């Protein structure tokens, strides 16, 4: 199921930020990051995806849980990854506004 209508990410600035990080860490052309683009087609190595997830976690101070059934392969498309991060971000906003620990790693 496509998490984004019209294969477009819209104008959420958080998404732009996520895509910037993803493009940088995976050394992928930012323009190719459409919701339905698969990580396989983009040639994203699993290690680079791990680095991208780590950076996104650090920048937004969130934890992106591993999907137990398929660790390391839970995101097959850019859209799925972005949707997952946004879900975590929205959940965090409801839970606690704490900024503790931000920037503690690096």
């Amino acid at each position, binding site marked *: 199921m496509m998490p984004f209508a019209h294969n477009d990410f819209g104008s959420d600035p958080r998404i732009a930020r996520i895509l910037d990080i993803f493009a940088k860490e995976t050394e992928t052309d930012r323009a190719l990051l459409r919701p339905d683009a698969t990580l396989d087609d983009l040639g994203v190595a699993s*290690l680079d995806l791990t680095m991208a*997830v*780590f950076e996104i976690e*650090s920048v937004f101070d969130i*934890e992106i849980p591993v999907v137990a059934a398929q660790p390391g392969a839970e995101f097959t498309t850019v859209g799925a990854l972005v949707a997952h991060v946004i879900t975590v971000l929205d959940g965090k906003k409801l839970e606690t506004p704490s900024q503790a*620990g931000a920037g*503690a790693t690096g």
Partner: protein
Amino acid sequence: MTSARRVAITGIGAITALGHTAAALWNGVQSGACGIRPIANIPTERLAVSHAAEVIGFDPATHFDSRRLTTIDRTSQLALVAAREAMAGRSLAELEPARAGVILGAAIGQETFDSSYKSLYGENAKRLHPMTVPRIMPNAPASHVSMEFGARGPCFATASACASSTHAIGLAFQMIRSGMMDLALTGGSDASIVVGFMKAWDALRVLSPDACRPFSADRNGLVIGEGAAILVLEEWHHAKMRGADIHAELIGFGMTADAGELTAPDANGAARAMQAALSDAAVTADEVDYVNAHGTGTRLNDKTEVAALRHVFGPHLDAMPVSSSKSMHGHCLNAGGAIEAAITALALRQGILPPTIGFRAPDPDCAIDCVPNEARHAPIQIAMSNSFAFGGLNAVLLLRRAA
């Protein structure tokens, strides 16, 4: 058994407290320079010692791009810099990729280990960097060297504490001699001067507060060093055919275990390893012209090593110089044997004996010619390099001047 196969050392790279190249190492050795200095790279408030033989002025960014740097600990950085020098721009393209291997001493990514757990336990970090495991793994230096040069044959790391890189070189030697491969990048790297590990060494009460004075009556312990040395070993005929510049020939390797004490050296185990190397090379004790000793500078090691040497060499020891270059480059742990093998090869080539610096007074328990304080010319033909490790693991290499 293809006993006709011989093994040449055709490349040497090194980065140590005496400088960032093998030439700098050798210049330091022949001028009796001391790489042991006040510790500069880490905070020392919590340490009992203030001196170490650090690699100074090393800027990883001049050797690796930022993306690659996130994946390699200092341990692997040093190994790669030494390997590049040893290869001198040479490619392995002429070889079947599986005929070239990499065997290095196992070396943990201590800087990553130390900083990760400091941030986790000390600073309550929420997460560790995804590259923490690949940076720490003790085979990382060997893996990175194999990737850099496309060596696709036998590749692994040997673990025997302070003899690790001597075991690595010995195994690479045997595997080339036996026909399993034709070329090997071998040796080791170590970057253990981090607060946690230095604190652990403090606890063993074997560190000198100021200097490493092997065989001297007033010696008071060892000094930790860091660095890397990589040798290119090559099947002799192959090296000759391509007109390679041969530094020296590796002719024998012996290894034994004390199966006794955990940290105390054992003269019998050490002597048996030296005898095994002699026997492997079919060389008699009297034919050896020089020994690069393990010579850590602790009371017990040096005395025990001299007893072992006396047992193996008998009266010949009175005429044979034995020195410890650790007095200059420190005890480089997993890299020590490789750095010392490199120095031994260059000593054969140059006909110059490395000195034992910091020597002040003879010790009746160490009645040897330790080439005190100044290098000396000597047309040596056969030399031995000793490594004796915690855990009672002994490894000895025998080298011959290239001819």
